[in-house]
């Protein structure tokens, strides 16, 4: 019963409901200045000024406004981002995405309507691995 007591916003969410969630969530009315790091997945709808360094999937959903350096394994953008985006695997820009800055990713996809101003650097993971192997052999 208590699990569905949605009409009581005053009560703090019980630990039982929350402990299984490993996807962090920053709501639209939250703003963060500083650095967010760690692993796990993250959905951002708020404002961030600073740095994301995440060993997981990052979803930047509207009305998010991000300003800074962003690193993750996978990044999906449908919000507003200014700065450098680095993904170890993949970046995806949705229709409502507005990105100003530099993308650094081995794989990229963009939906018609997405706005992007800046540079793209694509290094295949295999190439990067080969390059490091070669330099190691020398």
């Amino acid at each position: 019963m208590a699990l569905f007591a949605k009409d009581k916003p005053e009560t703090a969410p019980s630990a039982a409901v929350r402990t299984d969630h490993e996807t962090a969530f920053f709501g639209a009315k939250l703003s963060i200045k500083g650095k967010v790091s760690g692993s796990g997945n993250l959905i951002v709808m708020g404002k961030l000024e600073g740095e994301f360094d995440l060993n997981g999937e990052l979803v930047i959903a509207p009305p998010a406004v991000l300003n800074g350096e962003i690193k993750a394994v996978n990044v999906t953008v449908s919000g507003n981002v200014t700065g450098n985006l680095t993904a170890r695997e993949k970046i995806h820009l949705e229709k409502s995405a507005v990105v100003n800055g530099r993308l650094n990713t081995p794989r990229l996809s963009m939906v018609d309507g997405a706005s992007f101003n800046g540079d793209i650097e694509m290094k295949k993971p295999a190439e990067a691995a080969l390059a490091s192997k070669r330099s190691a052999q020398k």
Partner: protein
Amino acid sequence: MAKDAPSGTTSLVSRPVFVEGEISGEENLHVDGRVRGAIRLTGDLFVGASGVVDAEIDARNIVIQGAVTGKVVARRQLEVQPSGRFNGECTAASYEIREGAVFEGVSRMLSSKSQADKPPAPPPDKPRTPPPDPAVPKK
């Protein structure tokens, strides 16, 4: 006022996430991970059992199951649950410290010094109701 409005969403800093800096907003926040810096919320702060917060905090209600260190203001209530540890300086309108909880530091009541953010009360020396003026004709 926004102070009493139920803030709908609850943001979550999950267990493997570490936030360093300032978090502010008109929401509730649930921390299972780590936060260092400052937290300013119009809503409630809930620090789960795995949560570690080392920050200056200003929130409406604060519930602690994990560990909190710092200077804290709970505009309504601070609650330290049995697994919770609080270390620092706290100002709150009301306290609930459960058996087994750790509370080390200073606690102050908000009511004595909260006049700044509340509408000023009428001065106690003036009578609340003006004396009836005989010059005003009654309707």
